[in-house]
């Protein structure tokens, strides 16, 4: 299973997780794990997601999530897990 890492960084506000999760649910993307911290008022969230059931191409999901991020004033990245695995695990 290819996992996707979704990161959300930006100023904390009401409904960030709700917005992102609604989008993921609507596109049949399953959330496997969520972790979140707030550093100096900045919201920092990481989701591990499984996109195998989604019919949408990866690139569309990435750009639509980036668009949602712009609307609510945060930066959303969507990346395949391998880049992190290869850098941080031997």
């Amino acid at each position, binding site marked *: 299973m290819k996992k996707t*890492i979704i*990161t959300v960084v930006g100023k904390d506000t009401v409904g960030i997780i709700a917005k992102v999760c609604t989008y993921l649910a609507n596109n049949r993307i399953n959330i496997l*794990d969520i*972790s*979140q*911290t707030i550093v100096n008022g900045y919201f*920092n*969230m*990481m989701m*591990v997601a499984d996109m195998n059931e989604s019919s949408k191409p*990866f*690139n569309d999901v*990435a750009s639509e999530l980036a668009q949602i991020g712009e609307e609510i004033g945060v930066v959303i*990245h*969507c*990346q*395949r*897990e*391998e*880049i*992190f*695995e*290869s*850098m*941080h*695990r031997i």
Partner: protein
Amino acid sequence: MINIFEVNETNKMIEEQNLDVRTITLGISLLDCVSDDLDTLCDNIYNKITTVAKDLVSTGKAIELEFGIPIVNKRISVTPIALVGARAAKCPEDFVKIAEALDRAAKKVGVNFLGGYSALVSKGMTPADKALIKSIPQALATTDLVCSSVNVGSTKCGIDMDAVRLMGRIIKETSEKSDIGPAKLVVFCNAPDDNPFMAGAFHGVTEGDAVINVGVSGPGVVKRAVAGTKGQGFEQLCETIKKTAFKVTRVGQLVAKEASTRLNIPFGIVDLSLAPTPAVGDSVADILCEMGLEYAGAPGTTAALALLNDQVKKGGVMASSYVGGLSGAFIPVSEDQGMIDAASAGALTIEKLEAMTCVCSVGLDMIAIPGDTSEFTIAGIIADEMAIGMVNQKTTAVRLCPAKGKKVGDTVEYGGLLGHAPVMAVNGFSCEEFISRKGRIPAPIHSFKN
């Protein structure tokens, strides 16, 4: 499972410290394009490149998007054209036609540069080698994306001084025909067959039909890591560089394997080079300053660079299954803001750069020199650099840019990744009589190394 801090560390490297994969270079053999007829040869070359490399750029872009890592350049290297064109091209003008075919193919597939307009003449020149070398000024002036290189020496064969002398004249002529021309021309000693970096990339005859080579980068990431070792000992400094180089190289390895799988072309090597760009914070010179030098070029620079180069290799070698190419820290002047500052401040001279090339890859790179520098002086500088490579069994290179009509202290603008450079002073004493001697410098002795 990966945690949020690791994800943030990676993304900070990409967003704030200019971590990128500098190039995916697709090496393509053109040996099967050979023909008696020039037009047929050009058609064969165009067709092979546009077929094999048709998906290179789109695949590179897809990998960029999915992994969130910029891949700055997608490039092609080909078999040295002096070999491919030896049968069909009878004169320099014929070789220019081949260069134009290469340029058309490169533009068609959308790559940034295509390397391999090259001749390997470390022991002697065939008529085809000579014709190709003589065509370089015109070929680089009439094409946009073609890069040229000439290997004039090796540890095994010595240095072909006739070729060195000729290259002094060719670099001068190239600069007279086009300002940007010399930036696309490299003179090598011990040139590797699998170098993915321009302008010196070519697809060596020891390679297969097609191969994916990847060049990593990341001076900004190393600089940030080194900043955290202020006041600490050399052991901590070395460990930090090594660990950082490992992480950076792992990304290169991932991208190389992914590109290889998607394009169905074998993976060749990862080139472990710290390749700077003119962007602020993406500088090898800044790493040296972070280690504790006021400017690159200050006493201690060669030692700092030797340490940096070695640790990058030690960290990188474990991160990749196959390492090759040039692999080391690059020290181009115009492509590195820290080097530009050092040269402008008077901290860095060509002689110091020459010393630095003894301990790192690759050589005297992207150095603007006064336009009135004689062809013999340029040949003398090349000969010195080739001698360093030959004796020390390493790759060295020279990419000098005589700046037409400019004097020491003026600035030359090359644009894009090639950056800008202050014109640097050249030792004005003559070497004409030495350079005018005919023949070769013999290969050095490989024993009695005391």
